[in-house]
């Protein structure tokens, strides 16, 4: 019974970390319909920049954090301006491939500037874990969960009530109509990429605190695909709810199935969930069902 509590708490907190990364993905999809395959590399380069600020330049945390946010904004603006904007209105496959090229490029930049490729951020959170009854959870996960929720709240409010947010949703729906209304579509893409990079940067700081800065950060995007599919590609609330569900499935499923089957079953559960969800509810729990007409 104690294990059940442990698995549950771990599942929910780990799932919130996945949801945090997935938020960046959903943000770009929701405002421009582009699948950002370079998300992992954006997380990676933001983490390294944080390392640069905090360890190499030895700035205090708050100052370094602000610099990281500014860097993420600049990175998002540059990526959108030089890589995505020339490809507006091209087929979606070209856009996906160009984000792939961007990913390789960023990876090369990271190898060039920080060739030693594994390092750690200074201790940002205390090491003592929190206790919930018999279960323990490390403080980094709790912080990640709290920050995910805050970001989710901010983003939802922004998209619902802020003029720019509503314009973003409109652009995702119908670019031509938005242009007819006089809204600059290019500005909207810029803003959404900048926001997504900031979310990726925050996600990167949290993930680096948990597992260090390694190349593995670039693969985190793949894990969050399952969250994104389950929740719906264009829904924030879907992401926040699907994240813990995937985390729970991983930990509970992994926890109870592993002794019965093979070790490592836990790694395959998110992908099996993807296939099942695609059969039953293809657009995810909260995704918008696209009605197609000839």
């Amino acid at each position, binding site marked *: 019974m104690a294990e059940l509590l442990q698995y549950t708490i771990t599942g929910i907190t780990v799932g919130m970390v996945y949801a945090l990364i997935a938020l960046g993905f959903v943000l770009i999809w929701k405002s421009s319909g582009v699948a950002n395959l370079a998300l992992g590399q954006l997380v990676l380069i933001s983490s390294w920049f944080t390392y640069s600020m905090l360890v190499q330049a030895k700035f205090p945390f708050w100052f370094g954090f602000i610099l990281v946010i500014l860097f993420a904004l600049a990175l998002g603006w540059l990526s959108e301006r030089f890589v995505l904007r020339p490809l507006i209105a091209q087929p979606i496959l070209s856009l996906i491939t160009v984000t792939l090229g961007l990913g390789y490029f960023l990876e090369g930049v990271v*190898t060039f500037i920080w060739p*030693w490729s594994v390092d*750690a951020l200074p201790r940002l959170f205390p090491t003592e874990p929190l206790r919930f009854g018999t279960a323990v959870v490390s403080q980094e996960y709790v912080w990640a969960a709290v920050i995910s929720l805050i970001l989710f709240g901010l983003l939802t409010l922004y998209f619902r009530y802020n003029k720019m947010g509503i314009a973003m949703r409109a652009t995702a729906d119908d670019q031509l109509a938005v242009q007819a209304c006089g809204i600059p579509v290019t500005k909207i893409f810029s803003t959404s990429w900048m926001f997504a990079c900031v979310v990726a940067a925050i996600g990167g700081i949290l993930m680096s605190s948990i597992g260090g800065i390694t190349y593995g950060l670039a693969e985190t995007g793949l894990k969050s695909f399952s969250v994104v599919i389950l929740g719906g590609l264009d829904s924030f609330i879907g992401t926040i709810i699907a994240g813990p569900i995937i985390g729970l499935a991983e930990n509970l499923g992994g926890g109870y199935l592993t002794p019965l089957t093979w070790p490592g079953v836990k790694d395959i559960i998110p992908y099996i969930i993807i296939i099942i969800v695609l059969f039953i509810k293809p657009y995810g729990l909260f995704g918008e069902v696209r009605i197609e007409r000839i």
Partner: protein
Amino acid sequence: MKGKRFLTVVGVLFLALTFAALPFISACAPAPTAPTAPTAPKPEDQPLKLGMTICMTGPAAEKGSPMGHGKLDCIKYINAELGGVNGHPIIADWYDNGYDTAKQVTLVKKLMDDGALFFTNNDSKTMQASIEIANSAGFAGIASFSSPICTNPPKHIYAQMPDYGDDWAAFANYYMANIWKGEGKPKMALELLNNTTGYGARDAATCLADSLGIQIVDVEEHTTTTISEMDAMTRIKALKPDVLFISSTPAPTAVVIKNAYDLGMYPGIVIGCAHASYTKALVDIAGAKVTEGVYGVFPTVNWGDNVPGMAKMTEYCQKLHAKDYGNMDYITSWAEALIDAEILRLALENSGYDVLAKGDATAWAAVEKNGIQKLDYDVQGLHGPVKYTPGDNRLDKSVRVFQVVNGVITPVTGWVDAPRIPYEKFPDKFPWAVAK
């Protein structure tokens, strides 16, 4: 278009002539240089080519990059200060394989074409992709990080250091001799990375656990990108093991140890790590407090130990790649370059430069027979002595046990021998070990 017909005919003729001439163009050797006065050629003009494939970029860059730096710095040192091998400079013919096996296959063939005398590689995944080609061509290769398949059955691939199975065996030996004070069989849990690094330990345990008197109670698997192993550790905690052995890379190992610490398992049980993860990066990521007292095996010394080779290596590291100071992978490949130079020296003395200069199959065979297989070298104390014994393609057969004390990795033993694991005794489990 006027003259289009003419242009077409000219174009086709030109193309046809080019196609016809291609075989002849490439068959022409470069024009021989005018012969100088027939004096004995100076050794400085007779370089020895050493082939290297290094994963400087890509997913394994965290190990490949410092290892590449170590090797190349050492070659620079040998050429600059020792005048090369008996006066012959070493050319490091190196390529970055990006941890990509298809690229590695083509690069090994490139090295063979370039006339390299043998090649070295620093990770097991790309080495496994090269063994077939190297073995069928007779092109000897040395793997810094090896796996049992590379050296069993023994052919032309040699391992610079013991592999992950040997790590387990050495640690298990040490644990039973020095740490285990209870009665009966201690219970061991394995946390493995989901590739040959991790499963090497399990295979060794399959072969030797019973004879050593250890009971393996649980085998858990994780990925390189894992951020939480709480579920696996919870399961392990319920089984109340005495020792946990982790065979993985630094980041997931850090996650596992942190989770064990959070669950209150550690300090309490004994934790041992294989050498792939036991580096300064592990202590940095997990934190000195959490990793205090964690054991690990590593086949080389640590920085700052008093051995003959330490001074020059530290000097070059600080000068050229200061950020790599403290990283034991640098030591591994600096040592490997020293071993390569020793191999070239032995081959040179036993076969003569003319045989080696050809850079073809006879040269490769000469380097292997008269160089690698005659090795008996102390590597200036940087790791265990390398000596070739027939039937065992591992060159260095010993490791050292370390422990994290106050955030610093300190040695607790001298060189502990890692005996050769008899995989061929279990042909149904390890069919690859049986010589065909």
